[in-house]
């Protein structure tokens, strides 16, 4: 049996980019894991985007994160109960999603992956609607245009090109809306993502690429995708890249606002890398104990996005017991509502197979639908006849 110990030659000295200094700050953080506000010169250009948040605003962000987490937990348990076939949990990524989601304007357009439940929440998509595809009753259960929130995209990276094209359209229309495209650290390797960087740069499209680097692509750590920090990818395409503490909702909000403003004002694309952690399994089908230890998770637990904002709210007296208690009640109600909505979700009509294959119809679909209907009717007849 041949056993080799390494996959590839290791660089004798560290790789090429050491000469190009990283932009400052290397990680935008406005709230420490302990819940302290960070203010310094390096952060100032971002800080101004959250400087005038009121206590109510801050409580709102907290509420968003708590409800998102509660919804996510409910979905996970619905999967365990067999109500859903699968669930992709966002646990740990609440700040990245709520921060960036709350930075968007109503007329902006969002292109998510399959994990952006927090962003969907910010966009006003009914959480229950997100569950249809995981239950298997549809492949996308909301109208993308009602909330300018595209359907979940499962094939990795594809949506970044759609986002870029949409942004090109905004530019053509002379509108000042912007687009935000979500993708993961794993997705950064897909050719489509690279092509979306090229197109958006060449056409100076108003799009923000928001990469949630949650350290893992199923079982593969980010080192299997890149040997330098991902935010640096952007500079070689001619637009800026910024790494933000993805567990810091204020920093995510600020940096995304800044990037969206760049887009609106004709400065083109930006890459934001939200440095965060996937606290749970990749999906309910995954078993992370096969590929990662518990220490890593524990280290990230100390950086929990919800806890740190709570500490800040409390230390600043921005929220009292009543607020937290009420939110607890609201959470439970949300969980209940979602649970009931899912259980009540009807199975689709069998003929739905043939619906919406084409907008203008197709002779073969018509033919097959008719055959199928006749075939099904033959059983009904048979049963009826008994």
């Amino acid at each position, binding site marked *: 049996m041949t056993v080799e110990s390494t996959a590839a030659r290791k660089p004798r000295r560290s790789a090429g980019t050491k000469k190009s200094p990283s932009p400052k700050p290397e990680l935008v953080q406005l709230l420490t894991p302990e819940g302290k506000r960070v203010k310094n010169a390096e952060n100032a250009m971002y800080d101004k985007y959250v400087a005038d948040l009121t206590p109510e605003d801050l409580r709102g962000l907290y509420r968003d994160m708590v409800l998102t987490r509660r919804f996510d937990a409910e979905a996970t348990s619905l999967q365990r109960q067999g109500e859903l076939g699968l669930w992709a949990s966002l646990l740990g990524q609440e700040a990245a999603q709520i921060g960036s989601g709350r930075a968007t304007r109503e007329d902006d357009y969002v292109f998510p992956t399959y994990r952006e439940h927090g962003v969907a929440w910010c966009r006003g998509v009914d959480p229950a609607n997100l569950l249809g595809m995981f239950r298997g009753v*549809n*492949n*996308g*259960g909301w*109208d*993308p*245009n009602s909330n300018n929130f*595209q*359907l979940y995209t499962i*094939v990795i990276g*594809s949506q*970044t*090109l*759609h*986002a*870029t*094209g*949409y*942004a*090109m*359209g*905004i530019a*053509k*229309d002379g509108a000042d809306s912007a687009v935000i495209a979500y993708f993961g650290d794993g997705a950064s390797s897909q*050719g*489509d993502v690279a*092509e*979306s960087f*090229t*197109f958006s740069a*060449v056409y100076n499209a108003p799009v923000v690429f928001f990469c949630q680097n949650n350290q893992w692509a199923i079982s593969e750590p980010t080192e299997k995708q890149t040997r330098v920090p991902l935010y640096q990818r952007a500079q070689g395409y001619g637009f800026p890249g910024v790494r933000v503490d993805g567990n810091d909702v204020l920093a995510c909000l600020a940096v995304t606002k800044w990037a969206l403003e760049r887009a609106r004002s004709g400065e083109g694309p930006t890459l934001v890398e939200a440095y965060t952690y996937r606290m749970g399994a990749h999906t309910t089908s995954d078993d992370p104990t096969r590929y990662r230890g518990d220490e890593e998770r524990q280290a990230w637990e100390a950086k929990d996005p919800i806890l740190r904002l709570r500490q800040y709210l409390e230390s600043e007296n921005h929220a009292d017991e009543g607020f937290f208690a009420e939110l607890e009640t609201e959470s439970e109600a949300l969980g209940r509502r979602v649970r009931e909505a899912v259980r009540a979700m009807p199975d689709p009509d069998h003929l739905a197979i043939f*619906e*919406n*294959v*084409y*907008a*203008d119809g*197709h*002779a*073969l*679909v018509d033919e097959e639908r008719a055959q199928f209907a006749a075939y099904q009717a033959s059983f009904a007849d048979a049963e009826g006849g008994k």
Partner: protein
Amino acid sequence: MAEKMALAKAINESLRKALEADPKVLVMGEDVGKLGGVFRVTDGLQKDFGEGRVIDTPLAESGIVGTAIGLALRGYRPVVEIQFDGFVFPAYDQIVTQLAKMHARSLGKVKLPVVVRIPYGGGIGAVEHHSESPEALFAHVAGLKIVSPSNSSDAYWMMQQAIQSDDPVIFFEPKRRYWDKAEVNTEAIPGPLHKAQVVRAGTDLTLAAYGPMVKLCQEVADAAAEEGRSLEVLDLRSVSPLDFDTIQASVEKTRRLVVVHEAPVFFGSGAEIAARITERCFYHLEAPVLRVGGYHAPYPPARLEEEYLPGLDRVLDAVDRALAY
């Protein structure tokens, strides 16, 4: 007002008309701007409609189709050019997984009126990847419509209809017929996009083809007529959907069918036509449906393409074989 026009020019005029009629129509692709495309199909359009409507894209087919999808989501109607048949595959994922399925995925909420133009087929003595006929690889995929005109008039009208369609249409242009001239009545009202046409009536056997092979089949019918055989020729025009009704009606009359396409026979359009027509016309057929097409081999170097492609003799041979049953 009927005018003699080369097929490439007919498409050019059709694109021009669409760009004029609807500000949401865009033309995108590699070299479609100043150059007017390598076949000049988009000649002059950028000059007249500007770089905002006729867009030279980066050299990345997945990016072209992927951004066209995004533009369609924003309300545009992009007409995308893939420079040659063999270069569509980098965009294959975006076409079959996104373009084809987003309407269904969104339960009908999203429409993607994108036309993907692909000059296809051989016979022009080109180097590798410039002569392929990949239509079957798209027809198997639900959500796409596949058409291919055989003459200038159809090229003009079918392009109008493809752009107006709310479904994605893969528009296969028979590149070896680009320079063939024929009358185009730009004021005629065309029949439905997906309807086949009987381009020559006959009684002994039906020849069914589309795109570049229609002209060949007409020549075959001429040659057969000299030998006293009356062949009916169908121009299928659409590969998805296939107009089985028209084929069936013809075969019920002639009782024999030969399907001709440039694409390889194995898993090609002829297979689907043969299978379905045999089912529909089982008691009418006097002979099995025969197929004439490319071989199960990569498209060969130019000096061999005449042997590889269906030609007059090979189709006549199939006709003879079918008639011999």
